[in-house]
């Protein structure tokens, strides 16, 4: 679906860069980008979502160069969920989710009956219906996150790119959300790429874990193959920890032991 070849990118004004990224995003992938702070995970996701421009190399989305897409065309294929900062101006939960319908309606935003039904169904599914008239800015960080995901679902794109979807969420909501993302893949055939700092959550849910460090992809494979003691030590520079198998799922889990960074 998306093919990235020899991608290089440098921010103007600071030294950070992405170096020679090669990546295939395949239909039905459920993958996690994992890596230290400042490794370039968000930058990579934002480049794929066409939020950041000015890269070199080749990115094709369904065999067409990313740079040749008009935003309305790309928005029907790829949706992007940013970190859930509050907005300058107030909009209701319903309004924000309705913005996800933009690819199907005009610039005046007149919703058809079918659009409203879809939005309400999504609000229901994400347990947001009771809050539909509440101001987005007054929600907790976790609720805002859920609203933005609901907005991306309303967009009906096949590929969902998410910047840290579970940040700010308690464990109940982390699981609530990851279950829904998994269902999107299993029932709706969506392709989901998310950034996570939670190695165990990535390990349990993702089928593919991509480690990024200093602007480069250092490992890419099934959780079992890449979440190893050696890799974690190299990527994060920590020494005192264990990798153990979750007896129920078989996925590798990282157990923290205090001290010794």
């Amino acid at each position, binding site marked *: 679906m998306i093919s990235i070849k020899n991608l290089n990118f440098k921010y103007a004004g600071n030294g950070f860069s992405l170096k020679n990224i090669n990546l295939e995003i395949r239909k039905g992938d459920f993958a996690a980008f994992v890596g230290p702070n400042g490794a370039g995970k968000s930058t990579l996701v934002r480049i794929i979502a066409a*939020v950041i421009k000015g890269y070199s190399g080749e990115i094709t989305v369904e065999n067409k160069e990313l740079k040749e897409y*008009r935003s309305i065309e790309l*928005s029907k294929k790829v949706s992007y969920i940013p970190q859930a900062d509050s907005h*300058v*101006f107030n909009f209701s939960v319903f309004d924000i989710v309705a913005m996800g319908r933009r690819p199907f309606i005009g610039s*005046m*935003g007149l919703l058809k009956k079918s659009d409203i039904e879809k939005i309400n169904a999504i609000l229901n599914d994400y347990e947001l219906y009771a809050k539909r008239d509440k101001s987005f800015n007054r929600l907790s960080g976790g609720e805002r996150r859920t609203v933005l995901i609901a907005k991306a679902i309303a967009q009906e794109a096949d590929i969902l790119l998410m910047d840290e979807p579970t940040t700010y969420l308690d464990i109940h909501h982390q699981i609530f959300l990851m279950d829904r993302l998994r269902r999107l893949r299993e029932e709706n055939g969506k392709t989901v790429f998310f950034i996570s700092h939670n190695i165990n959550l990535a390990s349990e849910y993702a089928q593919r874990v991509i480690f990024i460090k200093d602007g480069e992809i250092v490992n890419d494979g099934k959780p079992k193959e890449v979440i190893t003691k050696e890799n974690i030590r190299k990527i994060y520079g920590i020494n005192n920890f264990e990798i153990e198998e979750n007896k129920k799922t078989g996925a590798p889990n990282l157990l923290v032991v205090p001290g010794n960074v």
Partner: protein
Amino acid sequence: MKNKIILLSGLLVMLLVVTATALKIGSINISFMEIFKALFTGHSGAQSNNIIITDIRLPRIIDAILVGGMLGLSGAILQAVLKNPLSDPFITGISSGSAFGAAIGIVMGFTMIILPAMAAGIITILIVYRFSIIYGRLNITYLLLTGVMVGSLFSALIMLLSSIFSRDLMKVMFWLMGDLSGADTSVLKYAFVFVLAAFIAAMYFANDLNILSTGEEEAGTVGVNVEFIKTIYFIIASVLTGIAVSLSGVIGFVGLVIPHIMRMFVGSDMRWLMPASFITGGIFLLLADTVARTIFLPAEIPVGIITGLIGAPVFIFILLAKKEV
């Protein structure tokens, strides 16, 4: 939605009431009966009152409503495009740019000073915006600083022009303080057409502007053509400001305060905020102008003084009373 329709209708009624009052009071007080007759039958009895109503007060009232409306609408647009509730035509330098364009137009003997005023407004916002992009992102501090600096530069240039071409100082005061006493009916006619076109365009792309106001990056990913929408609205805001300035000089505060107040009532949805800001801007400026021409009868003071006197305290009050914009 129903509440918002009621509110907009209420504002329209209020506009009518203020208009009727403004027609009535002044150096000569005219009864409502006479006003009615003058407007709808063309005859009010006393010939002089007829002229006062149709040739003096009415054009000025329409001028005040249009100018206030344009500034309110322009302010609402700039705040949304720049994602900054402190933006308005004045702070971004557009007003002063337009005033400079108009002054150049006058010096060069143009009859349609609206055109250089609009063009200079568009150029100003594009320059100010360009200077405020730091590492690919809009930096609001730079924007406001550049806007204020460019604004002062243009004010200085206007004064320079006026000294070189030895126009009288009152003319300069007109551009810098704002004044509605020179309402010109011939200009009002084009102004009306431009305003209507700008308003329709503004409403047509209104939801894209909503999405843009929640963040440029996200807007692009749901299919909004971000650069196009920004450019369109910069042009609309500059055209509106350019016309307003050609009609009445630089009037501050309307563009800043009115969208703020309206946001409290109708929310941030531009499909409601823009018409509400237009109508309320009109009401506000008409009220201010009516006060300006009647408070020290028979003398008249520039309306900019009144909008500043009302606008500044109201704005500070809003900031203190409401933490969230």
